[in-house]
């Protein structure tokens, strides 16, 4: 008998008393009462608690905010599907020239079709991505690999992650957020910069993942 059949036979044998599969009591909260500014306020509070840096800005100010956060970066990577407008503050002059006409020379584009190598990513200082949905109560941002968020590797290897969250994408609690995404995409849930509590259970921020997480909440 194959291992598969053997194991399934064993399990069926173990259940010969036919235990009941109970109804699942789902009396926990499935949605929160919060909306608008209260959601933003809670998300900011939780992100700050994780030692992420947060800015809440008007949608129109996102490009300037990104540009200022990238001031010290020698190079940065963006997913090919990122909103071009967000990078406008980085392209030459701000004289209304065609997008990409004087593209910032520090920028690297990444896409599944034309991926940077791991070594190239390791040489990049920062990454800018969008996000799929966020959870205010837990300070969690979900990336789902959509074109404006890119491959998982780009938000992992560079040491500084700048992540834009649209106010409309903030959910109150986890069940609301999970209902908004497709679970079969490659998903990364991010709650603050990488951290460890492995030494005397004292939390230390910054281990293997990005040590600096900047969240821009656009409303």
């Amino acid at each position, binding site marked *: 008998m194959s291992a598969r059949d*053997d*194991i399934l036979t064993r399990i069926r044998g*173990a259940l010969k008393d036919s235990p009941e599969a109970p109804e699942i009591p789902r009396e926990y909260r499935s949605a929160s009462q919060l909306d608008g500014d209260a959601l933003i306020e809670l998300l900011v509070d939780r992100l700050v608690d994780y030692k992420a840096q947060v800015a809440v800005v008007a949608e129109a100010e996102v490009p300037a905010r990104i540009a200022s956060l990238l001031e010290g970066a020698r190079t940065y990577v963006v997913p090919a599907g990122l909103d071009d407008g967000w990078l406008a503050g980085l392209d030459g002059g701000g004289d209304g020239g065609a997008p990409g006409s004087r593209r910032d020379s520090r920028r690297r584009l990444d896409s599944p079709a034309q991926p940077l190598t791991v070594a190239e990513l390791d040489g990049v200082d920062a990454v800018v991505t969008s996000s799929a949905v966020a959870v205010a109560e837990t300070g969690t941002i979900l990336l789902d*690999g959509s074109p404006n968020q890119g491959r998982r590797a780009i938000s992992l290897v560079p040491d500084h992650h700048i992540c834009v969250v649209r106010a409309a994408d903030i959910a109150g609690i986890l069940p609301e957020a999970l209902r908004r995404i497709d679970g079969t995409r490659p998903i*990364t849930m991010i709650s603050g910069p990488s951290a460890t509590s492995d*030494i*005397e*259970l004292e939390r230390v921020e910054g281990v293997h993942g990005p040590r600096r997480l900047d969240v821009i909440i656009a409303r």
Partner: protein
Amino acid sequence: MSTFLGMPSLPAFGSGNLFAGESFPKAAHRELGNAQLRANLGHATHTIRDKRINVVSELPDWEQLRDAGSAIKQSVMARLPELLEQFEENFTARGGVIHWARDAKEANSIVAGLIRDTGETEVVKIKSMATQEIGLNEYLEEQGIEAFETDLAELIVQLDHDKPSHILVPAIHKNRTEIRDIFLREMPGADPDLTNEPSVLAMAAREHLRRKFLTAKVAVSGANFALADSGTLAVVESEGNGRMCLTLPETLITVMGVEKLLPTWQDLEVFMQLLPRSSTGERMNPYTSLWTGVTEGDGPQNVHLVLLDNGRSAALADEMGRSALHCIRCSACMNVCPVYERTGGHAYGSTYPGPIGAILSPLLTGIEAEENNSLPYASSLCGACYDACPVKINIPDILVHLRSVDVDSKRGKKKVPSQMDVGMKAASWALSSGKRLGLVEKGLPLGRIAAGPDKKITKLPGIAGGWTQSRDIPAPPAQSFRDWWAKEHQTPDNTPSTNNKEAQP
């Protein structure tokens, strides 16, 4: 082995690092002698208890989440064959390859074979209880394959050639200075001026592992959850070492116990609220990765999953004990356990220490295996573990159940009754009637003689000696309670009073 046709088959027990190895009292006695260990554990377990209580009490629906978690797991166990088949179909349809392993040996040889197929001799590893359980690292080493643990605590343990002592924080028994010393001694190129600051030590680990992450072609992981309705796997972590292993290599090999399934995507909303708060005492852990088979252009393109039995089917067959398989490995039970807090994890021998280990190890291996029958006694039955368990495993009840399994198995094997049997028989005889008890009480003066002038009995004979090993018994009183009662309630005509009849049992 189980070619049974309606015949009851023997349970297929697990192997690997699941054995106490020596009896718990003996191991505990040795560990208790280590004052540094006790100080480290006391500090760490109290820190994590406070954190857990804080974040758990924030949620207004914590008990409702526990109820849902418990029911979901109960349902998973009842429907396990069907859910495994559904998961297999979905995972395979998405480009993943499933392997089934009856026991530790079979799982190890599957993983080694998959690594060999890639031509690599090095792998990076994410902390995983399943691979600890099967002793994968040791096996790979024998096969000439080097496995690098990338979780900070696992790295500390691996560098120190030590064993994990906690399922979440395997190096919980080491303090910062001990860890600094291990790094200085074992980490090639460690800065000689390394301090014992946790942040400095974490940076040293980052430097040490970075090159490995960026060049590794094969990673080995466990999984926290597997969703049957989509074929999705989940790994919950903090440091980003998990993301590195799950994202950068070409080949990903995951080893997971068959009990880790959840029926649907919706169930994740329950467990991703229960696990982080119970485990590290955080509202959410820094990183959780979910993957469904292979995603073209993103992450490993060769994705394997080894589904492990290794005694789980045997545990499932125990109707009283099967809920031990609901465990999501959060470690809340060990953090609140008064026994674990003092003895530490090494005293339990098995990969699974603490209250959950005391039930899970003997359930997976059978009660008679290598001193595992001593584990169900490693508890005061205080119930703190049951209160803390996010999926409401009634650990105290299962401990008592396994004690009775142990007693029955010993009784079944012996022709001559043991001291315990004789003692219990005697107690049953004496306690079954007042007259008999009165007769036994006539022997009390003998106890006073044994106690001597300091009025203490310091050493009892035979198995009763266990009681006096760490405490004295005060000399019995000159008069028994029953004797006193009879005399107090005497009527003038010298017969016991009938006034208190209604108070008599």
